[in-house]
């Protein structure tokens, strides 16, 4: 078969791009020809659908204009020469094709499940954002009805498709394997974590909530911790860590929601990331390569994943594959899926104190941490690329008969 894979080009290579590379290899290895259909998001029309854009719109809601411009670009793509169309991130689903498989990673979440927190954090005008959400949902729905089969990136994404779009019968799930190579994870699992540090691996962006990890570690003075990952909120998080870990800081007076429900702007007079990104016993490690990440997993007593309402928990799966118990928050969405509370990790309330209590339990009882880590590794063993590819190939066969 000749298969077209459609994808918006954001100019970055992240986890989803790696997933698509594997999918393409699998399809080619099965004798299919694969065409790429891309839209460069930075080169879309400045006047989507030929409507003049008020200057204020580009300042107040630039994402809306860009999204509609991308949608128009995908809508114009003619993929009828291919036997099967596979679409990926929104709004690539706007391409029409009689055999249309959507590897549905997520909705354009600012107009769906993240709409309210986006507004609450002060990122945009509430009336405009809600109006935009209503319109985007209507436009999306028109195009999503043309999809023959959805393979959602997790059960959480599948549930969103049911909730927001009413799709149920034509929705399956594929669960990606880990980003780290198996051999690295095996080495990490063999590592001893006795007396080790507490680890958090996350991009420091809105809704990833590294702030809760920082708050938790402020409750545990003397306990070493590592925060891996960069991002736009790095300087804000580092400043927050220094304030919370300063002598006399009243940690119980801190409102956890306020810690992360904001735009991540540094207080006046505070400069960006310092030369030595350390606060108390917490080190900001920055971005690391796969080998270094595996080494960090190997030395961790547990891994905290505090994000809000994730699509999927790739880092949680990786941490569990490395034999580390995880601590996630009850409102974490996809990060909670593989975690059985008290068996292979802890599912706690989204507060620094609750995370700190779970971490303390694991640090004070190394035997408990080891047995939970072993359970975590057993759970994660099911998350393989072989299974993910089998799920995707089954979807292709279901659609193409």
């Amino acid at each position, binding site marked *: 078969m000749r298969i077209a894979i459609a994808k918006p080009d954001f100019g970055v290579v992240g986890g989803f791009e790696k997933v698509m590379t594997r999918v393409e290899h699998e399809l080619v290895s099965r004798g299919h020809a694969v065409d790429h259909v891309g839209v460069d998001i930075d080169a879309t029309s400045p006047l989507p659908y*030929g*409507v003049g*854009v008020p200057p204020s719109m580009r300042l107040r*809601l630039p994402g809306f204009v860009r999204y509609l411009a991308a949608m128009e670009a995908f809508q114009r793509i003619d993929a009828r020469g291919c036997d099967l169309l596979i679409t990926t991130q929104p709004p690539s689903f706007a391409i029409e094709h009689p055999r249309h498989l959507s590897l549905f990673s997520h909705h354009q979440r600012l107009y769906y499940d993240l709409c309210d927190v986006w507004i609450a954090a002060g990122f945009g005008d509430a*009336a405009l954002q809600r109006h935009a959400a209503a319109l985007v949902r209507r*436009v999306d729905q028109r195009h999503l009805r043309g999809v023959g089969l959805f393979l959602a990136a997790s059960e959480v994404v599948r549930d969103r498709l049911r909730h927001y779009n009413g799709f149920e019968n034509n929705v399956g799930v594929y669960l990606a394997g880990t980003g780290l190579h198996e051999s690295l994870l095996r080495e990490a699992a063999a590592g001893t974590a006795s007396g080790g540090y507490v680890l958090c691996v996350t991009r420091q962006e809105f809704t990833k909530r590294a702030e809760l990890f920082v708050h938790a570690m402020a409750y545990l003075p003397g306990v070493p911790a590592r925060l891996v990952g960069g991002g736009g909120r790095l300087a804000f998080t580092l400043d927050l860590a220094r304030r919370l870990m300063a002598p006399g800081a009243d940690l119980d007076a801190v409102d956890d929601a306020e810690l992360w429900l904001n735009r991540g702007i540094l207080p006046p007079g505070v400069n960006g*990331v310092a030369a030595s990104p350390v606060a108390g016993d917490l080190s900001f490690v920055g971005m690391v390569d796969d080998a270094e990440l595996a080494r960090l997993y190997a030395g961790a007593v547990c891994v905290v994943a505090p994000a809000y309402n994730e699509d999927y928990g790739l880092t949680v799966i990786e941490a569990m594959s490395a034999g580390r118990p995880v601590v996630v928050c009850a409102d974490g969405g996809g990060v909670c899926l593989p975690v059985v509370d008290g068996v292979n990790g802890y599912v706690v309330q989204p507060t620094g104190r609750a995370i700190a209590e779970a971490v303390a339990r694991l640090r004070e009882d190394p035997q408990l941490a080891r047995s939970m880590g072993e359970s975590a590794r057993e759970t994660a063993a099911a998350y393989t690329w072989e299974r993910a590819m089998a799920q995707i190939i089954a979807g292709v066969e279901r659609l193409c008969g």
Partner: protein
Amino acid sequence: MPPTVPQPAATDVTVDADLDYMDEVASRALGNPPTAGVPAPAAEPPPGAAAGYIGRAAAHAHMGTELSEAERLLLFKRGVLRLAHLFSKEQVVYNDNVLKALRALDRRLAAVPGLIATAEADLADLGDTVDRLSREMVELREVAEEQGRRQQALAEQLAALRAMVEPPPS
């Protein structure tokens, strides 16, 4: 029957150009023709777009109170205008001042796209700077780690040399 799409809660949306734009572009994305009465596609107005309108308004700001010598019925019109002057003299002042305000506003508006472009360029530069600094930090960390390793190796060499030249403590 297609499923009902859940919608966000209704809000006190104020009507303004942004909302009109959003409705129109979404309508077209849904496959509808352009809404009647919506002006033809036009990008942001060019700088000083209001100047033509202001010029036309300025031509009538004095409400015809200036007459040329070539006017027909000149004496009669002068008489009528002298009478009308009792009512129009303050209106003329008002019109002149409104025109001044409009011209000032037009000049300010003309400068906005430039300001936006400058702000966007500044933001892009800022992003590049952050990326560059992040890269430099990684490089510096690597250099520091390498220096640490060298220092450790030198210390070990030194210890070995000392052991060779210094007699063991009795």
